[in-house]
């Protein structure tokens, strides 16, 4: 706050400039700024862009661009946090992927990027992810949330399959499951036993936060 470099760094995020964000993050750290404070400043920029997106004043390329630019700065800042032995409150952790048989990437990427921008730890399994891979990742990462995307009606039931597998493995009660994608509706999400569904990426992030609060 108040530092010239932080101001420039916030501007780099507003201008979606990932390279400058990385350079400026390094500069900020060499100036001895507190990495946690810098991260919080940058997340506030993303939140404001998210609000403008919600109002229809900004659009997906802006939101994703800003979140992507933040990813230029984050590794530098997190490295510094580790080096200094500081501890940053993580909002939560998410395993995310597009289900087996479905190679739609963009919606899942949007949600993943926005979750990261809001301070979540995101483990992205990519597309065409089998139930086994989802279960393996849940066991390994022990995330707060599992997020699954399906754009096709023919693959939507893969989400149900994964939830059943979670049940069988005794993992279901430890985790919140959220689902999304063009093929999904509120009714469907309830029917397959998911904890939540939202039709847009911005709402999905709000849903994730809400579920964590509820515990």
């Amino acid at each position, binding site marked *: 706050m108040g530092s010239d470099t932080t101001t420039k760094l916030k501007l780099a995020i507003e201008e*979606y400039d990932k390279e400058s964000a990385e350079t400026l993050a390094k500069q900020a750290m060499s100036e001895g700024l507190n990495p946690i404070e810098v991260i919080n400043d940058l997340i506030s920029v993303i939140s404001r862009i998210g609000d403008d997106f919600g109002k229809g004043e900004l659009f997906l390329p802006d939101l*994703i661009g800003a979140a992507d630019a933040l990813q230029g700065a984050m590794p530098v800042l997190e490295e510094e946090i580790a080096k200094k032995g500081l501890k940053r409150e993580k909002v939560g952790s998410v395993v995310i992927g597009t289900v087996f048989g479905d*190679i739609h*990437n963009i919606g899942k*990427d949007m949600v993943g990027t926005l979750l990261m921008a809001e301070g979540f730890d995101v483990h992205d399994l990519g597309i065409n992810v089998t139930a086994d891979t989802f279960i393996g990742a849940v066991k390994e990462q022990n995330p707060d949330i599992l997020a699954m995307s399906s754009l096709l009606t023919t693959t939507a039931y893969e989400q149900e399959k994964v939830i059943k597998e979670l049940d069988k493995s005794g993992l279901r009660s430890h985790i919140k499951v959220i689902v999304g994608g063009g093929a999904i509706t509120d009714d469907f999400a309830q029917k397959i036993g998911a904890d939540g569904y939202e039709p*847009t990426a911005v709402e999905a992030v709000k849903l994730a936060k809400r579920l964590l609060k509820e515990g």
Partner: protein
Amino acid sequence: MVKGYTRNFKPLELLNEDQVKAIWNGTFEILETTGVRVEHEKALDLFESNGCSVDTAGKRVRIPSWLAEQCIGKTPKSFLINARDPGSSLRMGGNRTYFGQNASMSKVNIDTWEVAKSTLQEHSDAIRVMDALDNLAFTLGYEYYMDMVDVPSVMVMAEGVASAVRNSTKITSAGPSYDAEKYSLEIAKVAGTDIILEEAPSPPLTLPEDFCEGTFSFAEACMPMTMVSGSVMGGTGPATFAGSAASNNAEVLAGLCLAQLIKPGSKILAGDFVYPMNMGNGSPDFGAMGVGLHIAIHNQLWRRYDIPTMSGQAAYSNSKKIDWQNGAEKSLMLFASALSGTNYLSIHGSVFGELTWHPVQAVVDDEICGWVGRFLEGIEVNDDTLALDLIHKVGPVPGHFLKTAHTRKWWRHEQFTPSTFDRTSIPEWIKRGKPDILSHAKQKVDRLIAEHKPEPPLSDDQNKEIDEILKRARRDYEQKGLI
């Protein structure tokens, strides 16, 4: 800054060169053989002294084709219409298209869809909405809300023009009737803006007294005029497109000749306002296919001489509501008109033909204009837009373009993004209470009426001067027993 669109491809052309010549030859023959009736002494004298054969008793003027062609030659191919704010000025001619407010007499009640009375305040509020719309380049001073309960009918034109210049920086227009054009000119002068006179010969083949009087006033004041003869195919003009085009051309050209004889170089927009007759009830068939076809022919004919064109009837509907039929008729007509090269195109606000009007409709129409306007601009092809390097870099699935700087740089420029048309997904739409276009447009109108002000506003002195002109007009009309 007022938005005009530049068409970046060849215009739609329906006629071959022989057909163009045949219709123009017919137009010249009509003017030379049958001629036009001119109900104005000074105009008759002027035509006679310039080589026309004039029958003063029968008020008939026969215009030789050499003179008609000479007058066409004196008409500017392009010209600037200067607004009081330079950003609102219009450059007429060439492949530029401006969209603007459409005429319709009365307000419509958008709950019952019945005709409603309006007030001067509503007129002013509506003009402020027009001022705020992105794709609207010109307003109408008087040709909507013509039955305001608090304005005597003879004062509607002068009050309307005053309301237009006070509530918008955009170019507006006046009409010739009971000297209203003279008060309108004075008001425009005080406001520091050009003003367009909407001139209408009476079909078939007649230049009425008001028309001639208005042409003298505006030509002498070097102000632009639209020449718009509103014939009805099968009624006041032939039922065929070729015949109707020839007789409409003759009416427009006779008016153009009068203007050029009064003052060479007079700025003219050759207008089309022709409808087929609704043979079921005898009224103009506002939303008919034939209107679009007529406009396309008209635009091609006048492009032969590079004279700017206007379509006054380019986007009317027969529907009484803002509904599917309304959207279909207005959009199709607008598209035909814009693709065929209209320079000055009226669309905003009319609901049913020339009879009902509402600002909510204007907001919806503005979206159609944005769509069509962007279409007119076509596309750019160069290394950056072709994006081959990027396509190579992104590669197959799971690569995508959403995160790329190229997308951020280009998507807005390449697309038209409507602000009120519904574009949500079904779940979002349900969540928001299933809104439709009308509720979006109503909200926008309410917001603009509450918040929008023209920039810059007129000064107090200018407003006082306009008040004085209106007072004088009212006094003059009272003395003539018209109020």
